């Protein structure tokens, strides 16, 4: 392989594995358990075996606290970590909207401006690797289910 080819290769990988993704993978935020969660939901990616359990604590119309545990690839785990940071303390309505916007971005929707999603934009590079999109959205679908569980009491 020529030097140029090698650099092109790495550039493509760098677009998938942005620094912030690697940072969250190596140093996960809010990884662990809550003392008394309103709900906990386990999400599985049956094709590849990624696992994420999201715990939420709902206070009124606010997501007061959130934590996650799980195992899987760098994309699935860093997405979970970035998600907890993005939604913590937000209203339930804002959280739902962010879940919608993030999953729409990952589906490649034109209605979403990735740059409006802050750090989460870094995960937009995953779209060029279609089989990995499910890794990135796993935590978000699991959060959605956890909020449903909490609402159902």
């Amino acid at each position, binding site marked *: 392989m020529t030097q140029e*080819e090698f650099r092109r290769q790495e550039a493509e990988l760098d677009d998938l594995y942005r620094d912030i993704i690697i940072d969250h993978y190596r140093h996960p935020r809010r990884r662990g358990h809550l003392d008394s969660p309103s709900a906990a939901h386990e999400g599985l990616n049956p*094709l590849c075996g990624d696992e994420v359990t999201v715990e939420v604590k709902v206070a009124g119309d606010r997501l007061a606290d959130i934590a996650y545990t799980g195992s899987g*690839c760098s994309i699935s785990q860093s997405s979970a970590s970035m998600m907890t940071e993005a939604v913590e303390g937000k209203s339930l309505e804002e959280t739902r909207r962010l879940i919608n916007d993030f999953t729409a971005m990952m589906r490649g929707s034109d209605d979403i401006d990735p740059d409006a999603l802050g750090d989460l934009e870094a995960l937009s590079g995953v779209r060029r690797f279609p089989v990995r999109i499910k890794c990135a959205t796993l935590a978000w679908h699991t959060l959605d289910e956890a909020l449903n569980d909490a609402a159902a009491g």
Partner: protein
Amino acid sequence: MTLDVTAIRKDFPILERKVHGKPLVYLDNAATSQKPRQVIDALVRYYENTNANIHRAVHTLGEEATAEYEGAREKVRRFINAPTTESVIFTRNTTEAINLVAYSWGRANIREGDEILLTQMEHHSNLVPWQQLAKEKGATVRYVPVTEQGTLELDGLENLFDARTKMMALPHVSNSLGTINPVEKIATEARKRGVMLLIDGAQGAPHLPVDVQAIGADFYAFSAHKMLGPTGVGVLYGRKELLEEMEQFLGGGEMIRKVTFEGATWNDLPWKFEAGTPNIADVIAFGAAIDYLEVLGMDNVRQHEAEITAYALDRMATIPDIILYGPPDVEQRGGVVSFNFSDLHPHDIGTVLDQYGVAIRSGHHCTQPLWRTLGVSGSARASFYIYNTPEEVDKLVNAVVAACDYFLKR
């Protein structure tokens, strides 16, 4: 090298293609093999010249199609040395073949309190149907443990079965670890104890000489697409006496003898188990795949894979911090090399390797309980076939090292 791999590679059009600008290095053969020109041509030839439904029409095309379809069944019979074509049933895949046995034999013979014996290295397709059956019947499922070396814990074969064991099912070759299981010895013991034995040959028939009579299995199941054939064709070999006693699996056309408004009687073997129009074109093309393998010789196929696997194990063992699974002795191992790194997920390895044109599998390989037993969620897996070369193993090793370096410096 035992096989003339240069000549073989010319028969596989897909090996010409590039992935991300690099020559394809296809090392996911345990998932599905690539197809030689001869098999692709057989499909085209059938649709261009012969296409007709089988077993009914009196016109020329119908007769030709029937002869080719039944001709493929005879090729399969010879390939696995079954005593008669009545014992060779075409299904969709290995999974359907196993489900056929669980449904037709299992539901008539497994009772409350019986035990079904499986192994910890079972593919989900040889696990879920038996769990379902056990649940329905109030039977239990026990699993033969896997040692740290990736072999079955079989010391004291005579203690393998207990009084309640009615049925055992196990893989000929583990799709995750590569382990070749001593199926002949197990079959001898099973026969002595009157235990029914099914062998999941999905990773056996494509890679090893298989003689179902010498093995002594009651049932042996495998898939065409892992042995150069098309997708959508599986084979169930069953002992004729067993198949004759068994109730039908799916109902419909082809499998009946006589139908009235009051009921139906069943066709002879093997058609009793082949309801509806079968996958005629793909079965015929599977015949071409068997022709191809027979020209090479299955002993040579096995020898080639043992050589490549030995080379791969040697080379991969030099990669720092690599964890290799399965028996180190290639005598006990098919062409599968599963590996991990403690701080690198198999998917991330797989994505980087793909950038280098190297196709491997990453994940649980449909053996989730096995990986849980081994304390991980899955592995990266390279698996070899007749067209793979030592140079491709080198490319694999270089790409794995590049993946490690990439994440190390990030």
